[in-house]
């Protein structure tokens, strides 16, 4: 696959920006602190505001419903708390107007807690099924010290949703979280994920986006102490008419922490649009940091477009390593020819190549039924592209 700068004509080249914490207003829980975006702001310039159905300008008010199902092994607790609960906002503050709008539009937050030292035998599964209309949400996953848990967040149905999700990962805890955005093609979903990684804790996040009209996921990671580790993986399959945007920030604010980001996307259809922003800040105190981020895109058809913007801001030289890579390439005709020259029909050859492209990330999920569903979904998306 060609390097970042040799992208094909259907592909926008990566644009470097020097300011990582580039927002038009400081973080705030109050929507009034953010002006209504006009679309030229750094954090909004790739997003089709006219398709956010009013989430960004205050015209969207909560009038919809969401079917929520939670299944969790014994010991996991679920409670609804007021916004004055000390856990609310601990992992981070809204950084854009939609996240602040979501916070300003809820009165309660849901806290799912895994007790200290608990090793969960089964994943915690939270399924949100949109039943139309506008919804807002605030969910906190509180993982106690030395606990080990797998969370599967599933999003289906139709909704216009603004949400904040927090992950408080206790010292020495191990969390794997899979978030699947498998919305109907009419849905709009804008969400900020704040992850606070405890001392010597490790988090593995897998964000999978297939559905929706506009999906914008903004995972932000910071560290509560030294020795933390974050692995952030993502897969997206963006079809005709869809806008999928993943904006990541890893804030290395503590020494000897590690982060590894790998997002891969496939796009098909003339109007398919994907955005990947990978920001990493290494603060002066974050000596011994080891970080790498990677974004790969596979453009299956003419006209599809990706904006891929990796950013690294380093305030100390005493680190283990820091790097990033971004590449966007077309589906290679030569690969297709090679496989077909071995008797493999075109349809199957495409499937092999796309499956191969995503294989290393799918294997990271480690939750069998989610992996299988993902592969089935990929097959379906591909079958559509061939038809």
């Amino acid at each position, binding site marked *: 696959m060609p390097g970042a700068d040799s992208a094909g004509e259907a592909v926008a080249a990566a644009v470097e920006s020097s300011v990582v914490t580039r927002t038009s207003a400081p973080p705030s829980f109050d929507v009034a602190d953010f002006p209504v975006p006009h679309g030229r702001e750094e954090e909004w310039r790739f997003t089709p505001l006219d398709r956010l159905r009013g989430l960004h300008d205050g015209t969207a008010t909560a009038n919809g419903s969401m079917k929520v199902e939670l299944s969790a092994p014994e010991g996991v607790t679920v409670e609804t708390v007021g916004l004055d609960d000390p856990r609310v906002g601990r992992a981070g503050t809204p950084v854009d107007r939609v996240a602040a709008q979501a916070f300003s539009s809820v009165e309660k937050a849901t806290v799912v807690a895994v007790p200290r030292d608990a090793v969960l035998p089964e994943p915690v599964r939270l399924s949100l099924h949109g039943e139309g209309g506008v919804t807002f949400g605030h969910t906190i996953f509180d993982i106690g010290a030395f606990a080990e848990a797998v969370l599967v967040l599933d999003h289906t149905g139709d909704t216009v949703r603004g949400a904040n999700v927090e992950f408080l990962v206790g010292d020495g805890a191990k969390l794997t979280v899979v978030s699947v955005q498998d919305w109907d093609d009419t849905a709009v979903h804008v969400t900020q994920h704040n992850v606070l990684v405890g001392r010597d804790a490790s988090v593995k996040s897998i964000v999978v986006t297939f559905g929706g009209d506009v999906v914008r996921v903004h995972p932000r990671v910071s560290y509560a102490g030294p020795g933390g580790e974050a692995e952030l993986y993502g897969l997206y399959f963006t079809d005709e008419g869809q806008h999928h945007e993943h904006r990541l920030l890893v804030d290395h604010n503590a020494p000897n922490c590690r982060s590894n980001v790998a997002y891969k996307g496939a796009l098909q259809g003339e109007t398919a649009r994907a955005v990947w922003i990978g920001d990493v800040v290494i603060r002066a105190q974050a000596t011994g940091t080891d970080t790498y981020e990677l974004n790969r895109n596979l453009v299956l058809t003419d006209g599809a477009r990706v904006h891929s913007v990796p950013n690294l801001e380093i305030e100390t030289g005493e680190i283990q390593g820091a790097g990033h890579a971004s590449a966007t390439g077309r589906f290679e005709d030569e*690969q297709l020819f090679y496989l*077909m*020259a071995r008797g493999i029909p075109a349809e*199957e050859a495409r499937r092999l*190549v796309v499956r*191969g492209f995503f294989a290393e990330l799918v294997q990271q999920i480690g939750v069998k039924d989610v992996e299988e569903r993902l592969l089935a979904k990929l097959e379906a998306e591909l079958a559509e592209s061939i038809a």
Partner: protein
Amino acid sequence: MATLEIHDLHVSVETETGSTEILRGVDLTVKQGETHAIMGPNGSGKSTLAYSLAGHPKYTVTGGTVTLDGEDVLEMSVDERARAGVFLAMQYPVEVPGVSVSNFLRTSATAIRGEAPRLRTWVKEVKEAMERLEMDPSFADRNVNEGFSGGEKKRHEILQLELLRPKIAILDETDSGLDIDALRIVSSGVNRVRETGEVGTLLITHYTRILRYIKPDHVHVFAGGRIVESGGAELADKLEAEGYEQYTKGAAS
């Protein structure tokens, strides 16, 4: 007996400056069990012949016919040609990230044979073929051509030749870039397939070196997009001694 018949084949490529004719009337018949060496200088159109027979979309056939046992090869898609029994060992095999060699080989064998090979016999078949080509078993778990050395790529091509058992094998500069050990291993793979008597081989090469290991029945000199001289193995000796100069001078346009 399988026969590939190429008659008056004309092939062009589209370039920025328009259409350029590369093959200018190729006539050649390859029968099962025969080995034909096609030798010629760089730019003579040898590789174009190979890729055109396999159906690469870059090349446009503007005239002539190609048949395999009377069936029109030019009407077939790339995969149909392969399933009909045409195999092209490529000079520059393509990387396919995330697709393991074992998955690739099995998918390919399933397509060519029309049914999935029985797993137990298949595993044994692949293992033995790899051993004969002196390939490490871990090779099967690597991604197709990804990070392969030049020699590994060519062995992998010949491994496929052995497993897929085509009627017509086109070897496009399989010898290029190989050291003498790799050349010996690859050549013995080709010879094993030839010895079955079930394959017609079209050996495309720039050098006579590989002909020390693979003895052709016929040698053709390719220049200016067509065969300009044909003979037996002795023609290769003549080329070895005299080079291509006498052919290129006349064919230059």
